[in-house]
């Protein structure tokens, strides 16, 4: 009888545990698959090679991706918020050389490209309903556009002026239908071969950029100047103010983020080395060399690949985030608290498949979307996206 009592008690305990776990397991069931993903946008043609340029989140929480393919041809791709492809569009061959970045105006997206024959500039409007892009503006005065920067009130286009060997910068009004100001700097030498290699993806891709200080007192551009690849400070009237000259065409700045009050986060390169400084003071009226800017070497990173620097808030703290590519073809995200030189976190993405940094942005759901070029099967360059969820971001910097 005693044995039976023990058996009953044992059975009762076991059944109680079963019932408890049954109830408990029914309580937790949360699925949020769209918050992080990896997508590679495939193309069956082996001979098609893509180079993603820029990405922007759309009003439906999807993403529009601007890319070049097979040299300077232009490709648009639209995904939903889970990264699944909705439509894609190859622009007619007269439109070439799309430049970073995508511009948003009143919910519409625009990009800048070039006429294949006349070399002048188009502003194209993305037609999401028609799944295409249409001409919005022609700007015959601007040839060889190299970069576009949207200040949300003005738009700046950097270009190369082949007739006078100059780098130009043009300020367009907010509606992008008028040139308000322009400025130039002298290169003193013909760099058209370098420009053509850059545009056609047949040689070195120079890290052209334009940026504006938060106080809007200086416009900074990285481009050809005085026999070198330089970072030039222009005042609000687009007149020359100062310069940090690169080591001829083998040094200079890859990226720069103005933090305000003449402090900057920057990445600079010198031959095969890449250097970061997330918090440095620069003098906009200085005439100096880029290599004099103190910065920490990152020997593992590839200076020929794009470097992107953005300010991102994670878990109520503002970070300066760098995205770069390693020489072993991984992506590297570096997180610095704003105003600090101390690295808070570093995250490597990828391993065996070559990845190249192209763009990244904070998403509406608090995550981070990375645009990259993945070399699938070690052979085919394809557009790829890596989305990290807000929780993953917070985990990285924790």
């Amino acid at each position: 009888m005693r044995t039976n009592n023990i058996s009953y008690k044992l059975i009762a305990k076991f059944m109680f545990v079963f019932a408890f776990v049954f109830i408990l397991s029914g309580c937790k069931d949360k699925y949020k698959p769209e918050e992080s993903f990896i997508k590679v946008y495939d193309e069956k043609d082996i001979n098609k090679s893509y180079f993603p340029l820029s990405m922007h989140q759309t009003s439906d929480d999807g993403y529009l991706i601007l890319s070049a393919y097979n040299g300077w041809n232009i490709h648009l791709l639209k995904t939903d918020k889970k990264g699944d492809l909705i439509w894609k569009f190859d622009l007619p061959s007269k439109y070439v050389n799309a430049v970073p970045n995508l511009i948003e105006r009143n919910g519409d997206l625009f990009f800048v490209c070039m006429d294949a024959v006349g070399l002048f500039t188009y502003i194209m409007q993305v037609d999401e309903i028609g799944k295409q892009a249409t001409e919005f503006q022609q700007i015959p005065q601007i040839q060889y556009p190299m970069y576009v920067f949207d200040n949300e009130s003005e738009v700046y286009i950097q270009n190369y002026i082949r007739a006078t060997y100059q780098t130009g910068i043009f300020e367009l009004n907010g509606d992008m239908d008028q040139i308000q100001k322009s400025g130039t700097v002298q290169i003193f030498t013909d760099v058209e071969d370098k420009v053509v290699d850059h545009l056609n993806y047949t040689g070195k891709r120079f890290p052209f950029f334009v940026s504006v200080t938060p106080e809007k007192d200086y416009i900074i551009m990285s481009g050809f100047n005085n026999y070198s690849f330089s970072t030039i400070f222009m005042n609000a009237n687009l007149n020359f103010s100062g310069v940090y000259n690169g080591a001829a065409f083998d040094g200079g700045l890859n990226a720069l983020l103005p933090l305000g009050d003449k402090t900057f986060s920057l990445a600079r390169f010198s031959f095969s080395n890449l250097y970061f400084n997330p918090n440095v003071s620069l003098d906009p009226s200085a005439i100096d060399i880029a290599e004099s800017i103190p910065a920490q070497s990152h020997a593992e990173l590839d200076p020929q690949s794009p470097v992107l620097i953005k300010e991102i808030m994670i878990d109520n703290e503002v970070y300066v985030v760098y995205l770069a590519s390693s020489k072993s073809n991984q992506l590297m995200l570096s997180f610095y608290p704003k105003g600090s030189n101390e690295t808070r976190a570093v995250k490597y993405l990828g391993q065996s498949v070559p990845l190249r940094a192209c763009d990244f942005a904070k998403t509406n759901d608090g995550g981070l979307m990375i645009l990259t070029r993945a070399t699938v099967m070690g052979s085919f360059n394809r557009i790829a996206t890596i989305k990290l969820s807000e929780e993953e971001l917070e985990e990285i910097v924790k």
Partner: protein
Amino acid sequence: MSIDKKVIIILLVSFFSQFSFGQKYSVHKKRMSYLAFNAGFNFSFPKVSDRYSVLNSLEENYEKKYDKAGKNTGAQFGIRYSYNFTNSIALNLGFGYQSLGFKYFTDYSWNDTINNQDFNREMHHLQKISYFSFPMMVRWDMSNRQLIPYLQGGVFMDFRHQAKKEIHYDNTIDGKETKNEVSSSEIKSITDQTRKFNMGLMAGAGISYYTKHFTFGVEGNFRYGFFKIVNDENRYSDLTGFALQYLDVLDQLKLSNLNIQFTVSIPINHSVTMNILRRSKYYK
């Protein structure tokens, strides 16, 4: 279930029932406890609810092709305690370890329009998920002879221990591993990509042969897991592993399985003195 299968099951049950009627002894095990050791193999039935792929295209869907249950093999072993309320009704409480396997293959093809030479890649994905398992079943013995067919049913709880994955790949798309081309990835953990817990219903049939000191048996059970097994939140978290290199990400699925196992059990409360086996004439 087809009529043929039903007929086979009825014939098997009838066969074993007839066999048991001819036994010399009857089994008396009311209020007796047994401890059983079991081990065997299993076949898994993945049921996909949501499909995911790393590659994305408008022209093609990249759905995985899942292997049939015969190729989705695994193994299990464990112990269980059984208490007989009557001579024919018993409760089984168990603890075991089981490994469930499921396989699928993917294939990709790229066309070289200039050199007229295509590039193909076929990948065979092998997944194994191991669980600590706690089954609880009620068993109905269909006779009281030495050879007893029985039916049983109940619930189970599975706690994931680990999950691993390996990929075999070759360059010929033919649905099978091409021996002179095949290469393998390293075996990688996908533990974080799978959910920690599952539970469900199980039911099965078996047959036991009773002796004074041991009982031998063989049984088959079908286990239906209630929950999806892939952790959606970590599906793409493997940023340095298979996702980009092998263009692989797990679908969402439920995993049922059919296990076949052999059991050896011993009575744990003085079976000999309590005289489990009695000649049939006395038992009447």
